[in-house]
Structure formats: C-alpha cells, structure tokens
C-alpha cells in the first residue's frame, strides 16, 4: 500500500511539474502579447488582441474532462501515448496556458504606466520595456500567478488521474471509490491538501521576499494582502469551472 501511495505521488508531481513548466513557457508570451496589444498599449492591435483573447477564453471555458477527450488524438501525436502521467501532461498544459496567460496579463496591467513612459523617454524600445520593466516589475505578481496555477493543476491532475492519467486522483478513484478502501481515499485527500498548502506557503514566502525588496513594512503588507485575495479569487474561479 505505501509504495502505491509513493508512486502515485511521484506521478502527480510529474504531471504538475511539467504542465506548469509548459504553462509558464507559453503563458508568459501569450500574456505579454495580450497586454501589449490592448487599446492604448505599446503595440496596440485590436485584431490580434481580440483573436488571441477569444482563443484564450475558449480554452478557459472548456470543461477539463471534455478537453482531455477532445485532445486525445493531439496528445497521441505529441507524446505518443494518450493515457498515463505523460499523456495527462498535454491536456493539463493546454488547459493551464490560457489560465496562466490571463493571470500574467492581469499582473502586467498593475505595472505603473509611468515606468513604461520613463523607459520610452530614455530611448527604450519594446524589448527593453518587456524585459527590463514589465516582467521584473510584475515578478511578485507573476510568482503569485504561478502558485495559483500549480494549485489549480494539482486539482486538475486529480481529475486527469481519475480517467486514466495516473497519480493521486487515480489512486483515490480506483481504490478508494471503486474498492471502498475509505482509509486510502482519506489519506490521498489529506495528501492533496498538504500538497496544496505547502505550495501556497512556499509561493507566499517567495512573493513576500520579492515584494519586500527595499519597501517599507506597511506597503509590503498591503501588497501581500492584495495578492492573496486575488489568488483566492482565482482559485475559487477554477474550482467552479472544474
């Protein structure tokens, strides 16, 4: 029983790690592009903004279970298999990219316009503004966004697990639900809760470190409170969607 739990935990971590990796890898450029093509922004482009926004919205409104099924051919094409932890990474990442991209967009929107203007006034171009102003200034909010995404993915990976993706969700489903091993199911759920809590604590710690750089204590606290509420809202939103 214990090795079973251990193996499935590893599977869950595997799925969450890689899907987060791809969510960040693709979500940041998409989020940046969404932000920069907004009306009045640096690369204002209504068409690109609307099209990209629509794709992101479609991706976000797809029920995850259906997404897995719809993506099966694509998953097989990309990773060769459509089930197991490896097969689950594809739909998880596809679901997480638009989610994370929106969080990135929101984080960038909070960056003071005056800073962009200052960079422009010193002769900075678009790349300078992205890499030296927008992303570094939004870093604490981006870390908070990653935290939210990881937690969301832990939840999603359990769903993926239940339909053959492996991991803790699978364990809870096959042993706990189908074979009435209540204790195992409870253990699994507790482990998921612990996992989520640890991720949130770690994320908050990093955010606090980053946001705390050289600011006075009071402003840090206010900033953190805001971040945390936005994280809570985001998490609630996904629970509903899932």
């Amino acid at each position: 029983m214990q090795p079973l739990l251990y193996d499935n935990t590893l599977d869950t971590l595997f799925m969450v790690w890689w899907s987060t990796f791809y969510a960040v890898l693709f979500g940041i450029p998409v989020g940046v592009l969404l932000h920069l093509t907004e009306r009045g922004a640096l690369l204002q482009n209504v068409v690109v903004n609307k099209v990209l926004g629509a794709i992101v919205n479609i991706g976000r409104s797809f029920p995850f279970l259906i997404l897995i099924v719809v993506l099966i051919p694509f998953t097989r094409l990309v990773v060769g298999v459509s089930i197991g932890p490896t097969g689950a990474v594809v739909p998880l990442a596809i679901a997480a990219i638009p989610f994370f991209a929106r969080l990135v967009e929101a984080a960038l929107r909070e960056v003071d316009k005056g800073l962009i203007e200052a960079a422009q006034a010193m002769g900075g171009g678009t790349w300078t503004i992205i890499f030296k102003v927008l992303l570094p200034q939004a870093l604490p909010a981006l870390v908070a966004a990653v935290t939210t995404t990881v937690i969301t993915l832990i939840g999603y990976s359990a769903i993926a697990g239940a339909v053959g993706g492996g991991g803790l969700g699978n364990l809870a489903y096959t042993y706990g639900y189908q074979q009435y091993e209540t204790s195992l199911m409870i253990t699994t759920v507790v482990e998921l809760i612990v996992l989520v809590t640890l991720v949130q604590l770690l994320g908050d710690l990093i955010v606090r470190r980053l946001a705390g750089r050289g600011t006075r204590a009071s402003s840090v606290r206010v900033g953190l409170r805001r971040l945390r509420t936005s994280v809570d809202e985001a998490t609630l939103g996904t629970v509903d969607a899932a």
Partner: protein
Amino acid sequence: MITTTGLTKVYRSGDREVTALDGVDLHVREGEVYGVIGQSGAGKSTLIRCLNLLERPTSGTVTVAGQDLTALAGRGPRANAALRAARSHIGMVFQHFNLLSSRTVQDNVELPLEILKVDRRERSRKALELLDLVGLADKAQAYPGQLSGGQKQRVGIARALAGDPKVLLSDEATSALDPETTRSILQLLRDLNRQLGLTVVLITHEMDVVKTICDSAALMKNGRVVEQGTVAELLATPGSELARELFPVGGEPSGDDRTVVDITFHGSAATRPVISELARTYNVDISILGAAMDTVGGKQIGRMRIELPGRFEENVVPIGFLREQGLQVDVAAVAEAADTTGTDPAAQPAIPVPAAPLEKEAAK
C-alpha cells in the same frame, strides 16, 4: 536649443475632441532654465511630452539640438530607432519619479546606459559618478522604496543625466515634495544647469519655482502660449500677467474715484526719490497701497502700488512724469474705475515704454 512651430495636439475620444495644444511656438535658448507655467489643463504636460515625442503632435514641428524630431519620427505610431536614439540624449524627470522598485538605485541609473549598450564596467562607473553628483553616493545599493521623496527625485535626475543629455525636461518634478526639499532639488537643477551647461525645460504650477531658477518663462492658457520671454523682458512688459504673478504687489484701492498705478523699479531708478518729487511737482496726495523688493532672475527689482486721487484721465500728466523718470508704469486694471469712465486701461497714452518686445525673436 528647442524650437517648436505651430505645435498642435488634438485628442480624439469617440466624437469628442480636446485641443490640448493650439499652435505653440516655443523658443528655448541653449543653456537656459525655461519655465512653463499655467493652470491645470492648460496643456503643459502635453507640451513637454511632445518635446521628446512621447506624445505625437497632430501637426507642427519640434526641433531639439538642431534635430527635427517630428521628421525623424516618421509616420508610424511606434518609435523608430532614430527617434529612440534622439530620446536617449534628452533627459526627463517626472513628478512621481518613475523609478523601478525592482532595481537598486544604481541599477536604476544604469538602465538608460543598458539601453545605450554601454558595457558593464563603464555603466557602473558612470552610475556611481552621477549618484555622487546628485549627492547620493552612499545609497547606490538601496532600493527606491527605502528613499525619501527628495532622494528619489535625485535618483530620477541622475538617471536622466546618464545619456549625457543637452536638454533636461522636467514635468512637475517638485510638485510631490515639501517646500524645503523642493528648494534643494531646484538648487540641484540650477547647479547642473550652470556646471554642465544643461538646458532645462521645467513645467510647474508654482510661481515660486519660476522665480527661483528660471531665466525665461512661458505662460500657457487653453493650449496656447500667451506670454513668453526672459524674466527681465517679462518684467519690463506692461500688463504682463506673468510679471504681475512673478512679483505681485497687493493693495486694494480705497474708493471708486481713484487711479491705481503699479510702478516697477529696475536698476538705478530704484534709488531716486521719485514719489516725493511727484507729490511736490503736481501737488497730489499719494497713498502707497503696497510695495516690495525682490530678486527675480538674479536681479534686484522693486515694485510699488500707489493710488492717485481722481480718475485716470485726471492723472495722465503725473503718470507721464513717472514714465519720463524711466520707470515702468502699469495702470492697474481696476475694473470699477475703468468701466464707469469707459477708459480701457490698456489704451494708455502713447508714451514710449522701455519694454523689450515679447516673444520669438532670436532663439539661440
């Protein structure tokens, strides 16, 4: 150093149009501190943002250091390489400092140098040198969040100087600061202007700022420059609103049937006993409503508001006498007196006034 011709900016939002700039011709000479003053919404920020083309003018041209930026910028909405290169040699400081909270003070000053692709060693050397210049050498490793407002603005100034600019633009750089700090920042700008020969254009809504450090000034109203010139020229211009604001003399007339006259003393005229001479020669009773001495633009100047009995037309001769003494005489626009007699104070007797012509001759 900076010339704009017919600079116009119209903001369109939906079917609403706001003309923020309406044909502005600005002339800023090399090495001077030039103040632009005006009420909120007059278009000051729009003007200064047009000087480095952060804002694209709807029409008109902007020339900075002999370079026509409007021609350089091309048509597209994005800044091309040529415009960006030109901008990197025009410093700008902001009301809210606009420092990156994610970078240390030194790294903030290095940012423009990174944009100019200066190598790391040189960047660091230059940033430290500039921080030393603004008196913040010991704060290089601090974060902006750990500094006071005045210190942040010093960092902002150091950053603006990193590209070795010939021109520094300042939009309300002291408006977020207390009076004491304001003075020290103005002093710093003055020093930089003198030491580096930096041309400074500053926007403000405080007359005191103009009075303290400006060589020239412009007054904006509704998107237009209604007065501009050196401070001396402005003070010597009869009826100049800026001069009156720069150097106000208070005092209300004691009754309707009085003529109020503002007298400005420059140089040697200040030492002659003109008032008692006037009283003796014409046998008039003169009340002094207000008077002040001050230093404006580095020159001693005196102003006095006096009251003569009787209406303007009864006082044409004494006023003429004052003008003959080489004084600058403004018949104050006291509405009651002027309206009832139908005398427009602007339609003064054609006695020559030692006034330098205002506006737009000889830039540079």
